[in-house]
């Protein structure tokens, strides 16, 4: 069963997201929240890694955290989906278990 990975640090500041992408398997979900939402933006030095991972994984960002930081869905790497808090709960239920990369 697929795992939902969560991460909350900016990939431009720590390597948490990179490890998450490297160790997560295809078919899993990855939810980017808090400062990790910067990792879902296109046009950054880290965008390509996420875009590559997104080909075989579902990538989600927490909408309230994205808006707080001054970005909108149009700034996201292609294929990244925005969820709200209740969407987060739905994902946690939908996946087999949740693994946090902190």
């Amino acid at each position: 069963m697929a795992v939902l990975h969560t991460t909350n640090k900016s990939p431009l500041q720590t390597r948490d997201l990179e490890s998450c992408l490297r160790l997560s398997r295809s078919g899993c979900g990855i939810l980017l929240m808090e400062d990790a939402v910067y990792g879902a933006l296109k046009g950054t030095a880290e965008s390509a890694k996420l875009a590559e991972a997104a080909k075989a994984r579902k990538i989600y960002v927490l909408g309230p955290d994205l808006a707080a930081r001054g970005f909108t869905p149009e700034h996201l790497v292609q294929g990244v989906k925005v969820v709200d808090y209740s969407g987060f709960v739905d994902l946690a239920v939908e996946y087999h278990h949740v693994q946090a990369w902190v």
Partner: protein
Amino acid sequence: MSGMEENEGGTDKVKRFMFLNRKAPYGTIYALESLEVVLIGAAFDQNVSMVFVDDGVYQLKKGQQTKDIGQKNFSPTYRALEDYDIEKLYVEQESLEARGLTADDLLVPVEVLPSAALGALMEEQDVVLSF
């Protein structure tokens, strides 16, 4: 450095303070703490500049809407810095570029400097406070 030593013991020398901001807002408390220290410190009439490097540049991103995360949106306060006579805001060019941003994405006028120039400026300071 030598200028500073000559003035040692003097009570009225204006010192050069630089606040070095390297963290994104909201995820940690650093950005807000830095801003508060700058505003409080402004009462002491020193020569203060703020520098935004790495994820610190995100502090100045336009369009922040924090209603749904239950935190105060303190980004408008950067626009009040001018009233506090803090007019020197520097942003590292390399940090902006790594994030696909330009000065137009920022909510205050800033001076964009390449790393080398910023490094030189840091060396000229009496005090650099890192957040």
